[in-house]
C-alpha cells in the first residue's frame, strides 16, 4: 500500500491544479506495475520535482498527466477535469529537444500554434519574445543542426511556453547536457517559470537538482513504482547555487536520500 503523503502547509492554501487519487498504471496486462497507488496534489504556480531511480514510475506519472497513456486505476484530474487523452492544459519537454530539423528555431516555436489554429502576427511576435527570453534572440532563423545541445533545449523550452499551457511537464529536459550547461539552464528555467507563473513538474534522478529547483519534491521508489513521500522545500527565491552549500540544504538532501535508501 502507498504511504500517506504529507501535504505542505504552503501549498495547501493555493489552488490545486493537479490531483491524483490512487493512480496506478500497469503494462503488459498487469505483468509490470509501473506505478501503484499514487496520491498527490500539485498547487497552482508551484514547482514540483519528481525524483527517484530508474523504474520508479516518474516518467509514467508525467505521461499519465499529459494524457499520452491511460491509467489503469484511480482518478487523475487537471483543473478538476478528468484526463482522458492528450490535452492542451499541459505542455511537455523531453530529454531530447525533439525539434523538427527542417524548421528554423522560430518556426519550431510556432509549431504548437500551427497545430491548434492559423498563426497570427501576434503569435509570431510572441515567438520572437520567447526566443529572446531563453537567450536566443539572434538565433531565430538558425536550424536545430546549427545549434548546440543546450541551445536546442532552449528552443524546446520556448516552444513549450508558446503552447500557453499553464502546466509544464518536463522529463529530464537537461539530462543529456553537460554539467555546466545544465546548471545554467536550471537557473534560467527557475527565472522563466516564475516569470510566466506556470506550474511545473520536473522529472530528474539528480537529488540535488530536484531540491534546488523545487517547492515540493515527490520522492519515488521503484518495483513497483510508488510515491514514497512529498518533501517540502522551504528555501526562499530567487535561489543561487550557493544554496547547495548550506547545512539546511544538505539536511534536505540527506532526508531524500534516506527515503530512497530505505526502500
Amino acid at each position, binding site marked *: 500500500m502507498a504511504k500517506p503523503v504529507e501535504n505542505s502547509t504552503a501549498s495547501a492554501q493555493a489552488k490545486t491544479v493537479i490531483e491524483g487519487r490512487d493512480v496506478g498504471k500497469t503494462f503488459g496486462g498487469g505483468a509490470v506495475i509501473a506505478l501503484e497507488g499514487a496520491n498527490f496534489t500539485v498547487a497552482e504556480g508551484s514547482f514540483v520535482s519528481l525524483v527517484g531511480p530508474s523504474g520508479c514510475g516518474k516518467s509514467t506519472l508525467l505521461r499519465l498527466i499529459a494524457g*499520452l497513456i491511460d491509467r489503469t486505476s484511480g482518478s487523475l484530474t487537471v483543473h478538476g477535469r478528468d484526463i482522458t487523452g492528450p*490535452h492542451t492544459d499541459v505542455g511537455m519537454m523531453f530529454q531530447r529537444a525533439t525539434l523538427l530539423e527542417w524548421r*528554423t528555431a522560430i518556426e519550431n516555436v510556432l509549431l504548437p500554434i500551427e*497545430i491548434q489554429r492559423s498563426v497570427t502576427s501576434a503569435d*509570431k511576435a510572441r515567438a520572437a519574445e520567447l526566443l*529572446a527570453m531563453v537567450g536566443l534572440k539572434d538565433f531565430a532563423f*538558425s*536550424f536545430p543542426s546549427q545549434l548546440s545541445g543546450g541551445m536546442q533545449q532552449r528552443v524546446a523550452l520556448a516552444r513549450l511556453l508558446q503552447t500557453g499551457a499553464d502546466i509544464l511537464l518536463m522529463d529530464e529536459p537537461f539530462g543529456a547536457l553537460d554539467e555546466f550547461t545544465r546548471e545554467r539552464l536550471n537557473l534560467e528555467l527557475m527565472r522563466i517559470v516564475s516569470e510566466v507563473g506556470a506550474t511545473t513538474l520536473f522529472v530528474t534522478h539528480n537529488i540535488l537538482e530536484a531540491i534546488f529547483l523545487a517547492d515540493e519534491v515527490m520522492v519515488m521508489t521503484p518495483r513497483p513504482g510508488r510515491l514514497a513521500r512529498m518533501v517540502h522545500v522551504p528555501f526562499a527565491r530567487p535561489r543561487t547555487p550557493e544554496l547547495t552549500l548550506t547545512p539546511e540544504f544538505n539536511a534536505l538532501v540527506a532526508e531524500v536520500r534516506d527515503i530512497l535508501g530505505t526502500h
Partner: protein
Amino acid sequence: MTDNVKATSQPKTGQMVIHFTIFLALILSWELGAQMGWLDKLFFPAPSAILTSFWRIYVSQGNIWFHLYISLGLVFAGFTAGSILGVGLGAVVGMNATVRRFLQPYVIVLEATPRIAVAPLLIAALGFGATSKIAIIMLVCFFAPFINTLSGVINVDRDRFELMRSLGASKIQVLRKLVLPEAVPVIMAGERLALTSALSGVLVAEFIQRDQGIGTLILTYTRNLNMASAFACIFTLTLIGFLIFKGMERLDHRIAYWKNEAGLRRVGAKRARAWAAEQGGLARA
C-alpha cells in the same frame, strides 16, 4: 571557411592533368588498336568512327532526336506515375499498422521477383504500344520509392511523435508536419534509384517491342552490324544517366535542404528575409 571547403573538395590541377593524360592515352591506344587491326573492328569500332557516327545521328542524319524524344517521354511518364504511386502507397501502408501487417508478405514476394520478368505479361495484357511500355517503367520505378517511403514512415522518431501527440495533433497533421518531412531524405534516395531504373526499364520495353525509341535504335544498329552508331547511342545513354544522377543530386540538395550546410544557410536567410518583410524585423522582440 567556404574557400577551405572548396579547396579540399576540388581535385588539384596536377591531378586533373594526370586524369586527362590517362584518358587520352586510353582513347589513342584504342584508336591505334582499331586502325592496326589488333582489335576486332566489328565489335570495337575506332573512337574516330564512333565520333563520325555521333555526327551522323545527331547532325547530318539527325535520326536520334525522334527516338530520344520518345524514350525520354516514356521515362518521364512511367517514372512520375510509378513514383507517385510508390510514395502514396508507402505513406498509407506505413501509417496503418493493420494494412501493413497483411500487405507485408506480398510486398516481400513481389520485391524478390525480378520486375523485368513480368514485362512480357504486361505487354500481353496491355498490347503493344506506349501503354505497356509505361506500365513496365512504372513497375520498375514503383518499388524503391514505395519501400523507402514505408521505412521512412515506420521509422519516425518516437519522441517527436509523442511531442506531436502531446500538442494535440491530428493524424493528418502528424503525417504532414512530422512524418513526411522527416522521410523526405530517404524518399529522395528512393526516387534517385527509381529514375535510374526507369532508364533501364525503357530500354527493356523497347528491346521487346522493337518499334521506336533509343532501345530499338540500338537493337537496329547492332543487327546491321553498325557498331559505331550503337556505341554512339550507348554513350548518349551514359551521358543521360550521368545528367540524371547529377540532376537528382541537386534536387535532393534543394528539397532536403536541412541535410547540407549550404541549404541550411540559403533557406535560413530566405526565411529571415520573408519574416522581416512581414513582421518588420525582430527589432521589437
